[in-house]
């Protein structure tokens, strides 16, 4: 253990120089083994695998390691209580950093910049068994759906503005095709005559992570359930369960992107943008069994 502490202290003394240094790095940075990878590094003579493991841990929590490297690290920590404790510390820090991201409900829409915006999103209110729905479409596809029972029209327009769109009441010539088709399919869905949507969607302004979550969610079939953890695993980020929940909280196109089919691992429903009653109602409408394995 003595050797590890000494190595760590040396590294701590080296790295702060990076801060104001503009010169290119002349040596491999501490914490990484870019030339040979951590597995080969750990097997070099005279190298303590614990040093390599501890160096690799920051990279582990921000997704820098390859799958074999990750497997090696987890294997090593399962045998070494010192490293296991260290890894635990990094994972707790990572979890705290995740929690520092404000939840979707508190995420502020960007202010309208003083720049010309030419893309229009027109919207119409339709009746549904879960209350009035606000459905907005651009010429490219459906871009936002809102539940009018839990969101005012002004708030809904704010979401469109936040996506860089100019809100326009009622469908116009440019959007009647995309918006009209979506409204027709939504009506069929609520009448029990449709179990799959086939309409163009406009994801402009949606972040890549949220987009990946939405795409994975879109694949859950009618009447089936998935969990936040399943979605996180499916997009290749098994640790990002909470981030998946946040991303689904920002689902711009509920009902069509079926985030109501995503529940907690324990089988409880989890949250829903429009309110939990709407989630229950949609699942009941689909005949989904509210018990997960």
């Amino acid at each position, binding site marked *: 253990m003595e050797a590890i502490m000494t190595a760590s202290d040396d*590294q701590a003394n080296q*790295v702060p120089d*990076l*801060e104001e240094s503009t010169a*290119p*790095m002349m040596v*491999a*940075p*501490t*914490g*990484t083994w870019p030339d040979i990878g951590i597995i080969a590094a750990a097997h070099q003579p005279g190298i303590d695998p614990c040093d390599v493991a501890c160096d690799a*841990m*920051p*990279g582990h929590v*921000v*997704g*820098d390691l390859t799958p074999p490297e990750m497997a090696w690290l987890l294997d090593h920590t399962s045998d070494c209580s010192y490293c296991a404790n*260290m890894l*635990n*510390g*990094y994972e*707790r*820090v*990572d979890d*705290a*950093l995740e*929690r*520092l*991201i404000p939840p979707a409900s508190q995420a*502020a*829409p*960007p*202010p309208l*910049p*003083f*720049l010309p*915006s030419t*893309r229009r999103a027109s919207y119409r209110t339709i009746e549904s068994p879960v209350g009035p729905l606000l459905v907005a479409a651009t010429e*490219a*596809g459906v871009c936002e759906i809102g539940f009018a029972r839990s969101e005012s029209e002004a708030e809904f327009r704010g979401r469109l503005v*936040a*996506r*860089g769109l100019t809100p326009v009441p009622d469908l116009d010539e440019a959007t009647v095709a995309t918006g009209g088709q979506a409204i027709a399919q939504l009506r069929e869905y609520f009448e029990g005559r449709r179990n799959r949507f*086939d*309409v*163009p*969607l406009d*994801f*402009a*302004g*949606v*972040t*890549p992570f949220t*987009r*990946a979550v939405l*795409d994975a969610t*879109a*694949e859950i079939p009618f009447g089936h359930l998935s969990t936040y953890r399943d979605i996180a695993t499916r997009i290749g*980020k098994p640790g990002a369960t909470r981030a998946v929940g946040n991303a689904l909280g920002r689902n711009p196109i509920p009902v069509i*992107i079926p985030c109501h089919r995503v529940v907690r691992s324990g089988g409880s429903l989890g949250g829903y943008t429009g309110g939990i009653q709407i989630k229950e109602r949609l699942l009941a409408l689909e005949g989904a069994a509210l018990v997960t394995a």
Partner: protein
Amino acid sequence: MTNAMAAEAALAGATCAYSTLDPATAPAATSFEAVLARYQGEIYRYTIHLTRNRTDADDLYQETLLKAYRAFDRLDGAANHRAWLYRIATNTFLSDRRKRGREAGLDEATEQALTAAPDDHAAGLDARDLLREVESFVAALPVKQRVALILRKHHELGYAEIAATLKCSEAAARANVHEALRKLRQSFGDRL
């Protein structure tokens, strides 16, 4: 492959049961409005992460977009618009900070005090206070470490993009992220 690259690759190859925005009919990537529509949400969140207050974030965001708008026509058509916007926002933030001649957030002395906070004191804090302390600690990190950590952890940028943003090598970008995490673990690993 980095997370960001993996995410891009996943998006490129995503098969979705639903028709999504068709690249053929999608707004041309060469329109500033299209670039803005796509990235404004995350860029605004980034300005909030950097400034830690809404008023400063609104100013930084507006200034970033204006600079981007003015420079857009001179930009190479094949440019990575996302990384380019992050770079403008970061440079604007760093240059404002230099002009003001002070750290946004806590100073080094406070960082020392936070690091040295005894464990028994921590035991009395509830989780919310501790999280607030983590937030302050991140804000007090050397600015390159803080920016690199935010870009990697909260915005999933690759190290090449972070390096270009911070005008350093990829190795230095990575080392800054790792060092920030190492300091966080040293201060909070046993307390969280």
